[in-house]
């Protein structure tokens, strides 16, 4: 379970360890992996994204897949899955035919620590912290739920206007640099074909919409692909996922990542809720990191392969 740098994928890590490991990964795979900075957090931490690409720099960007993990900082299994997945992409390129074909014509962007301030805070001060760490004017409560801060149904009933709530949407859409930086990156790129936002826990795979009841124009295709993905996931360790639109699978959620990406032209927009054993909630023991990541991988590749084979 160790890479050549001695990194242990089966334990949880601090942000410093993860950022250092990202540099190691880039050094080990210089022709495939690079690290880019898309902005900085409220507390001035860099927002790093790993870019997996086999193409030369061109004036127009190659079609791309965006993946983010850990926008809710306390869901540690997601950042850990992000680390494992990054390593898997790097080491499977050239071996796994499907992944190799994808990377031959597409780029993959992976933001492992999407909410670095919150993540650092979970390690140093409060393990239960979920939001960003920005100050809210007129309130003693800090932080905004970065998965209610996107400009898609922003401020609707599926979010809270109370700064002390865990689902506080923030003062205005993209008030948080952590979300604004991703939105700017995706819009600036202009050729992102899929966006996959990874959370935990509930064992679900969802797609738009969360902010409205009506089916997305691509509902049937998204639903069919979700079924394929959760079947592939279940085949690894028998873990059962439910799937469907956010609104109908769980509840109304306004201002969420994948509704914004979908409304901005990213047809294949999905969000995962990783493992829940019913015993630990998001305090999943580290012994479950690798099984969780292992089972998520075929679901991810199923989606990525479909995106690759269905250009639009």
């Amino acid at each position, binding site marked *: 379970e160790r890479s050549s740098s001695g990194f*242990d994928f*089966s*334990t*949880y*890590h601090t942000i410093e360890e993860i950022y250092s490991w990202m540099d190691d990964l880039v050094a080990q795979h210089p022709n495939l992996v690079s690290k880019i900075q898309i902005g900085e957090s409220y507390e001035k931490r860099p927002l790093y994204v790993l870019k997996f690409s086999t193409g030369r720099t061109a004036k127009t960007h190659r079609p791309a897949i965006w993946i983010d993990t850990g926008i809710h900082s306390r869901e540690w299994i997601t950042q850990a899955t992000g680390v494992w997945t990054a390593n898997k992409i790097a080491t499977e390129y050239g071996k796994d035919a499907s992944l190799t074909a994808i990377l031959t014509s597409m780029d993959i962007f992976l933001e492992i620590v999407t909410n670095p301030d919150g993540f650092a805070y979970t390690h*140093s*001060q*409060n*393990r*239960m912290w979920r939001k960003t760490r920005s100050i809210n004017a007129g309130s003693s409560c800090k932080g905004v739920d970065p998965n209610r801060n996107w400009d898609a149904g922003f401020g609707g009933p599926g979010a809270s206007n109370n700064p*002390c709530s*865990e*689902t506080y949407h923030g003062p205005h859409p993209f008030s948080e640099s952590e979300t604004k930086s991703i939105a700017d990156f995706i819009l600036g790129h202009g050729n992102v074909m899929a966006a996959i936002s990874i959370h935990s*826990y*509930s064992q679900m795979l969802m797609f738009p919409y969360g902010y409205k009841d009506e089916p997305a124009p691509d509902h049937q295709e998204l639903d069919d692909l979700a079924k394929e993905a959760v079947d592939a996931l279940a085949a690894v360790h028998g873990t059962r996922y439910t799937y469907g639109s956010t609104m109908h699978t*769980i*509840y109304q959620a306004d201002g969420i990542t994948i509704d914004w990406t979908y409304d901005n032209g990213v047809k294949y927009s999905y969000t995962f809720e990783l493992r829940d054993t*019913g*015993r*630990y*909630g*998001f*305090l999943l*023991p*580290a012994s479950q990191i690798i099984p969780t990541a292992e089972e998520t991988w075929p679901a991810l590749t199923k989606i990525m392969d479909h995106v690759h084979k269905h250009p639009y």
Partner: protein
Amino acid sequence: QKRFVGDQVLRVLTDKEEHIVLLRELEESEDLQLDYWAAPAKPDLPVDIRVPFPSLQPVKIFLESHGIPYTIMIEDVQTLLDEEKEAMEKARKL
């Protein structure tokens, strides 16, 4: 570092819509300082609530008085966090 000694996580699994409504009302009680890990969405989906130790008694009385079924998912949150921290330290030493 904030500690969570004695905090429990309760899992509610109910098939009644009126229970979901009551759980949403409970969430609004700011004095109880409840942390909904899984929010009340709809019947048959679990609702997980981290309840700080001082609020355990009133919350359990509330659930029981309304006939809302629950189980204790995590007996003591701090124990789990201590184990998690210990595992990280051990891995780092290795």
